[in-house]
């Protein structure tokens, strides 16, 4: 039995919003069964972290102006190269018997409290899960709005208790070679991502264990997945097996592949183009159908007020 103490900001009785509620809010007059039917039709995927559900909406991170993208699109339009390099493959390939529960994550490096812990136990230790609605901006110039469930990364870092020498945190994805559904070599596995420690400690940095109040599907990076909403999606390391506190700035996987195109910071920045396309605007997934218009990309993906201070005095053109 899991006992959690809800932090003060939580509304005690408000369960996390499932997709049906969002849908019905958007189209009250649409047939009532519509949302429920969508949920019933959702594929039965292997479940990852099951602890912490149902989650509770954190009202501080529920901007009413954001319309969440459909569960179907969030869980099928995916870059997860371990399971294929096109958008549709991960949904199929990550559900061919690859097991994400039980799952052990190792927290290690320059910290006072190294540990290896089961993902569900970790969620319990973090006080359960909450729901936050964040924008997601992919480096490929498309965007979604995702209701993530999970816990603030800062809580995990406090548990780890970093030593003063620790300046960066790395997140390693599992090594996919030999996993059911593995699609073959594409990148240098295991996928590695990193943050500066102060970025990782930021309020917005989050470890997701769910989407729309349900355990995060395998293809979205079950059971633990980094979420840093002011950065491009490739920073969101999936299916984390190791969190390592280090002294030196790490080289993340995409930077190692193509340093000219993908940097360490990867902050969403409409003024710094990708060598092959502009980052000034983005296609909003699911909005307006096939011919939906673009919207302007916001500095730091709309989180400028919260995070700009982290980069004071830095040349963001060079540190892309």
């Amino acid at each position, binding site marked *: 039995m899991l006992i959690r103490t809800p932090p003060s900001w939580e509304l005690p009785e408000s369960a996390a919003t499932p997709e049906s509620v969002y849908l019905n809010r958007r189209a009250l007059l649409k047939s009532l069964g519509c949302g429920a039917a969508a949920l019933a039709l959702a594929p039965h995927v292997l479940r990852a972290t099951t602890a912490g559900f149902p989650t509770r909406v954190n009202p501080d991170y529920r901007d009413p102006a954001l319309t969440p*993208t459909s569960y*179907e699109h969030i869980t099928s*339009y995916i870059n997860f190269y371990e399971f294929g390099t096109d*958008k549709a493959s991960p949904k199929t390939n990550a559900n061919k018997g690859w097991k994400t529960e039980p799952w052990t994550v190792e927290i290690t490096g320059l910290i006072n409290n190294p540990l290896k812990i089961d993902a569900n136990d970790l969620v319990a230790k973090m006080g359960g899960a909450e729901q936050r609605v964040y924008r997601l901006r992919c480096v490929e110039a498309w965007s979604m709005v995702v209701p993530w469930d999970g816990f603030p990364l800062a809580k995990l870092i406090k548990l780890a208790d970093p030593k003063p020498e620790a300046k960066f945190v790395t997140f390693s994805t599992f090594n996919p070679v030999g996993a059911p559904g593995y699609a073959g070599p594409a990148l240098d596995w295991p996928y590695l991502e990193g943050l500066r420690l102060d970025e990782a400690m930021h309020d917005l940095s989050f470890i997701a264990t769910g989407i729309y109040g349900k355990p995060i599907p395998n293809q979205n990076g079950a059971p633990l997945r980094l979420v840093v909403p002011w950065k491009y999606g490739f920073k969101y390391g999936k299916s984390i097996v190791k969190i390592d506190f280090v002294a030196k700035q790490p080289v993340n996987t995409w930077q190692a*592949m193509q340093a000219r195109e993908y940097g360490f910071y990867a902050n969403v920045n409409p003024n710094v183009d990708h060598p092959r396309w*502009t980052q*000034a605007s983005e296609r909003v*997934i699911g909005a307006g159908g096939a011919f939906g218009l673009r919207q302007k990309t916001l500095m730091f993906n709309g989180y400028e007020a919260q995070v700009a201070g982290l980069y004071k005095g830095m040349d963001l053109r060079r540190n892309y």
Partner: protein
Amino acid sequence: MPLLAKLLRSKITIWVLLVLPAIWALKPLFAPEPSDADPLKSTLLHLGLIACIVLVTVLTFTPLRVLWPKWGVAQALNRHRRLVGVGAFAYALLHFTAHLLHVYDGGFVTFWKEIQKPFQLIGLGALLILFVLTITSLHAAIRWMGGKAWKNLHRLAYVAAALAAWHQADARKIFPLQVVWIFGPLAVLEIARIWKQRVTASPPRGTTPAQTS
């Protein structure tokens, strides 16, 4: 005459073969998979892929005829060079149109910024060549230019293919292997054709011009 060659001699067959892939390419726009979050992008990528395949296909016709002059299929295909070449241009133009829609932001700011990226300039180069070949392929244009100039101009089709291969390879973050299986066979055929033409054109070994004259 074998059935295949007979079929391929018919313009109708070629038209059908050229139009069928468009159904696949445009399907996402009219009947998207529920999971396809960006159907227009799917259409854009499909059209680019078909443009490359059709372009490579038309370029194999001449080497096939040179290598196997008596093969009915090669002869049949060479009747349709113009139609298939224009088909390649049509798909490239549709691909470009899909791109225009995809970057449409109420105006053309995004389009203008992106067209300056090297990989898109390369695509634009290929598209312009196909365009020039298509308009000069009208009989009037051929007569007006004269056969020799027209033939030289036509060689630009190979440049277009090289640019298209480069563009396709550069469009992805990780080198897409399909570039090899689309353009590889053409390269092999071209090398074989050049080699055969050399062998046929050069005098037999051991003979010098003095001896033969």
